């Protein structure tokens, strides 16, 4: 089973990297970019039948730091 975990900074948490990318896009002449925020994609190949609880635990214990990050789990197949 292929699972994609998308980790993003919580709203309100300053993202200096995203801000620098935003400024760089503006510098390249792209207009209309309101903001850029950088996250992380983690693709997992896991045993069929792995429970949602186990996936949630993986996210909470390691893949995301829930003090600053949100995560979303997407099943790809």
């Amino acid at each position, binding site marked *: 089973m292929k699972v994609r975990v998308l980790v993003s900074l919580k709203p309100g*948490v*300053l993202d*200096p*990297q995203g801000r620098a990318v935003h400024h760089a896009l503006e510098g390249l002449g792209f207009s209309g970019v309101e903001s850029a925020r950088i996250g992380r994609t983690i693709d997992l190949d896991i045993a069929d039948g792995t429970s949602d609880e186990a996936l949630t635990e993986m996210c909470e*214990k*390691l893949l995301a*730091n829930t*003090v600053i990050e949100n995560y979303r789990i997407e099943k790809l197949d």
Partner: protein
Amino acid sequence: MGFRAAVVTFPGSNCDRDMAVAIEKVSGSAPVRVWHGDAQLPDGLDFIALPGGFSYGDYLRSGAMAANSPIMREIVRAAERGVPVLGVCNGFQVLTEARLLPGALMRNAGQTFICRNVGLKVENAQSIFTSGYEAGQEISIPVAHHDGNFFADNDTLDRIEGDGRVAFRYMENCNGSQRDIAGVLNASGNVLGMMPHPERAVDAAHGGTDGLALFESAIRSLADA
């Protein structure tokens, strides 16, 4: 019996020797060196130090992998028993990732790695790590980090400030940390995490000795206990 300290080395730690040298200089006893894969800590420890560096190459998030290494389970237990635990720089990041301390350390607001002396104000001079300073004392300690931007939500910040758990504040905020926080204590006061490196300020040849009082405080607290 002397001061029985342990310094933990993770793959990628690079301030572990400096930490051991500083502790031995102040206490007169060489710390036990502990490896991240060790399943057990030595018995009867008086002090545990998590050093700076780039454990596991900062993979995933700074400190995230180290926080899940075998020795950390033992360190969490020791901290819960009241053993003093000091985390400096990457050690602070590990302690937040292990949830022994609140908040998280994010990329510096200015995006750059900062390596220089910074001015700190001692906010809490009553903890086991800071009793050798005066409240409000201004000290100079080196920082060397890329991810030192302390973040916690406002409720958490209000709580740790209200409980006197801010040990040190930056006099000039070098990295974007919320409320200028440079060092924070756990609720019981036996765990301290800080981005500045006190072990790099224990000898006149370092350019300053303002870090000495931190180690002296911990040793005296034990002697007084």
